[in-house]
């Protein structure tokens, strides 16, 4: 689970302890609910899913939904089913993305398709979607189901966009990339905030502010994740240069190409057969073109903007927690 304490001063920890303590208990309930399934006849599927869910993850989306829910004074709808839906949708998308990316590890445990086959992994994700559907009835008529259905389409659009542009620099730039970040990542985080606020009975302007906050930190989260491709760190289960090797051009790369277009580097990036030396040259080129600094600046800017959107919300622990969460994501180790 997310270690908020690591990013707070001692005074802040003391101040926010009651809220995070409450969240911790809710997340334990979420964990129990998420693990409560059996798939008779498919032990490999059940084991794979329980291994992945049990491996943790940050539970960022349900946590945000809960904190936004806590901002409300009239909490008429239950929030735990929403938290389950968000985490199940997210986990299903991870299982499916791992097939698309042919990833070997997720949350430092072997991916489902690497332990079974792609078809089984696809169906494992489908099982989670079936489980997520169990909760839809609770939010009938609230607009929450419509938002989640829209977001799932957006996530597919983002993945399609990435897949269509693999190994191609033409037609990709900073703005198209940021749109892809919104679709792949930020819209679900924004929906987590918005739907949590809706379940908590917040006013429309407050829900919109939280949606904008979520979108901002979602973009920052994706950009930070992309930066990890430039820094070797086993802690994140990501090998340096993997995105570049796989023809995925993230913000630091696209910025470098726009600022210092070098035909040789573009050709190297677009090549499907890259040697270690090619990768090193590309990583150095991106670094020299200030691609990393530029991305860090964008992360800081979107995070600040996201925090500023919270101004319309009442002061108190939940608002402070949202600020700390944004700062915690911004400070993730790069």
């Amino acid at each position: 689970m997310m270690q908020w304490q690591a990013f707070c001063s001692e005074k802040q920890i003391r101040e926010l302890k009651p809220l995070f303590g409450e969240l911790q208990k809710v997340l334990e309930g979420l964990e129990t609910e998420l693990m409560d399934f059996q798939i008779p006849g498919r032990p490999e599927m059940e084991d794979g899913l329980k291994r992945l869910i049990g491996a943790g993850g940050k539970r960022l989306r349900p946590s945000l939904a809960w904190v936004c829910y806590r901002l409300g004074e009239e909490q008429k709808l239950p929030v735990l089913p929403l938290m389950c839906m968000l985490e199940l949708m997210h986990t299903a998308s991870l299982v499916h993305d791992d097939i698309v990316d042919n990833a070997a590890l997720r949350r430092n445990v072997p991916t489902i398709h690497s332990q079974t086959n792609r078809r089984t992994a696809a169906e494992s994700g489908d099982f989670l979607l079936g489980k997520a559907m169990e909760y839809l009835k609770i939010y009938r008529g609230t607009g929450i189901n419509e938002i989640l259905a829209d977001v799932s389409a957006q996530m597919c659009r983002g993945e399609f966009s990435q897949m269509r542009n693999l190994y191609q620099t033409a037609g990709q730039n900073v703005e198209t990339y940021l749109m892809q970040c919104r679709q792949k990542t930020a819209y679900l985080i924004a929906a987590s905030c918005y739907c949590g606020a809706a379940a908590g009975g917040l006013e429309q302007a407050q829900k919109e502010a939280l949606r904008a906050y979520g979108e901002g930190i979602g973009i920052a989260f994706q950009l930070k994740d992309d930066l990890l491709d430039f820094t070797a760190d086993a802690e994140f289960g990501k090998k340096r240069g993997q995105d570049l090797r796989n023809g995925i051009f993230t913000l630091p790369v696209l910025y470098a190409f726009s600022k210092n277009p070098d035909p040789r580097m573009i050709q190297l990036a677009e090549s499907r057969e890259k040697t270690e030396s090619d990768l090193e040259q590309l990583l150095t080129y991106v670094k020299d073109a200030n691609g990393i600094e530029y991305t860090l600046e964008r992360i800081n800017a979107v995070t600040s903007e996201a925090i500023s959107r919270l101004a319309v919300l009442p002061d108190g622990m939940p608002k402070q927690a949202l600020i700390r969460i944004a700062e915690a994501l911004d400070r993730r180790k790069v």
Partner: protein
Amino acid sequence: MEAVRNGQNAERIREADEIFREAEAVWCEEDLPVIDRDVRARVRETACQAVQTQVFAKDYADACEAFYLFRKLHSFADQMPAWAVLTGDYFFSRFSHALIPIDNVELIDRFSDYLKEVVKMINTEPDLEGYLAFIRQTALEISL
């Protein structure tokens, strides 16, 4: 409001067709079996005939067709991982959209149970006749 909804639906159908055509081009290149348009039409027809009132006929047909494509595409995951998985997921989102206007708890639960049940069948082809029977039976039992 109805006009807005119809406009959004038309836009979504255009997008779905476009994505499906794109995927189809890829799997033709790879010499993979295409999804028979007659089968899609049969799914829709079965759904339309199964409903007792015509109010939800189109939404039910959209939902049933999108669900069929979602399952069928994911059955190609071994042969064409990226396209099959992403296109399948896209049709799941179309399916979710189509369920919303019908606004029927029992229908959502039936599809949820059906999905959790069919994934238990190891590496078998999606059973079209079984699915058509499910479409008919569900509409009948919940008086759609």
